[in-house]
């Protein structure tokens, strides 16, 4: 199943928290798994390409990002969705920057601003992680006592302090421990772009607006979800639908344009 141009000196996965090493030549032959997520990958590319995080050439970074996704050897589909989601956002930002905007959409706002803020925040969290990791390692070498030293006699203990969430939490954990045994079988149905497109357009007509993340995650199988993901991209690209996001990485709301170009109506 590994068919990419795997480099001989890269047979093992690097440690999870290491910055991926670039392979010889220009290729960054690393697996997607070593990244915590799409933001991690983006930061890696920014560092690798020596890009100023405050002035990201969005077209270039989008190209690198997609190139990267194309190079991956082995991916976990659950995670791929998150990477693809950000790919869509990059493309969205790019389009915002390229297209002449209607005047009433906050024109003073650089469409990249939200992305940059997120990346900076995420970068901070990553830096904090490496500092916290040191503290953790230090603490793990010191052993505390986890038992009560023996005591003569027990006194009567009446009062307790009890928190609702503590109680609920214990129960969750208890149930989870039990649920761990039972396996879950995920079955998906085969679905074509055509069918999905029809379903999606129908849904948009009916509800006027859909919450894309909600729609996306409601799917039984990832494959089906991905098909619908591409359908939305297609609809937006062909200007049949509009997608808007209030806050980056939150969710995307999709609705049909009032006057969609006739030729794309899948009816």
């Amino acid at each position: 199943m590994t068919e990419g141009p795997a480099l001989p000196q890269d047979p093992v996965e690097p440690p999870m928290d290491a910055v991926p090493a670039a392979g010889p030549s220009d290729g960054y032959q690393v697996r997607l798994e070593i990244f915590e997520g799409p933001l991690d990958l983006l930061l890696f590319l920014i560092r690798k390409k020596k890009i100023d995080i405050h002035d990201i050439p969005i077209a270039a970074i989008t190209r690198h990002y997609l190139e990267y996704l194309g190079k991956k050897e082995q991916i976990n589909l659950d995670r791929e969705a998150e990477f693809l989601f950000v790919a869509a956002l990059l493309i969205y930002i790019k389009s915002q920057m390229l297209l002449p905007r209607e005047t009433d959409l906050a024109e003073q706002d650089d469409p990249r601003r939200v992305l940059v803020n997120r990346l900076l925040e995420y970068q901070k969290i990553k830096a904090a992680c490496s500092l916290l990791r040191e503290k953790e390692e230090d603490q793990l070498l010191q052993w505390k006592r986890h038992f009560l030293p023996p005591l003569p006699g027990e006194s009567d203990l009446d009062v307790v302090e009890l928190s609702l969430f503590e109680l609920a939490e214990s129960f969750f954990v208890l149930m989870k421990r039990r649920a761990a045994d039972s396996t879950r079988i995920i079955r998906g149905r085969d679905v074509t772009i055509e069918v999905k497109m029809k379903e999606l357009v129908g849904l948009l007509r009916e509800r006027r607006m859909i919450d894309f993340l909600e729609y996306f995650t409601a799917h039984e199988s990832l494959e089906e979800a991905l098909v619908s993901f591409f359908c939305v991209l297609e609809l937006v690209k062909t200007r049949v639908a509009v997608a808007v996001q209030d806050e980056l990485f939150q969710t995307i709301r999709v609705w049909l344009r009032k006057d969609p170009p006739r030729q794309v109506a899948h009816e």
Partner: protein
Amino acid sequence: MNSRLKETIEALIFVSQDPLSLERMQVLLEGVPGEDIRAAVDELAGDYSAGDRGIHIVRGGGGYLFATKPAFDRDVRRLLQIERKNKLTSASLETLAAIAYHQPVTQSEISAIRGVDSTYTLKTLLEKKLIKIVGRKKAPGNPLVYRTSEQFLLYLGLNSLDELPSEEEMSRILQEEKPADA
């Protein structure tokens, strides 16, 4: 005297939940002669008992363990009373949760849910009046049936059991195993 040996033994006695026997030490410190271990333990114990110390090493249960010196019994009790008052053990909390969500429920049902015998914890919760016995089940052995008490609601600031976090809220937390993100 090898002071490193004494230090090691000090650390071992401290973390050991049961009294640590000389035999056990000898197994752990392989290669160290028994008499050296013995001498180190004696010296360590001597250090603690001679000095102005709040704790010391005592022999008991076939081994050595740390304990507070008797002179501080009153202080220690005061501390523990305050600490323990504030807290249910996690076993108690777990049992209480199992009862809250499954009531009315019998001892063996609770034990089955927890996978652990819960007789003792039930007693504690009864003493604290967080649960109550409401009758017997019509089943072999007529086991006692437990429910949470009024007091329980009071502690949680709930008006009724309906206000406990619901199944859906729970499942939202429990749903979707995603080991990739572990």
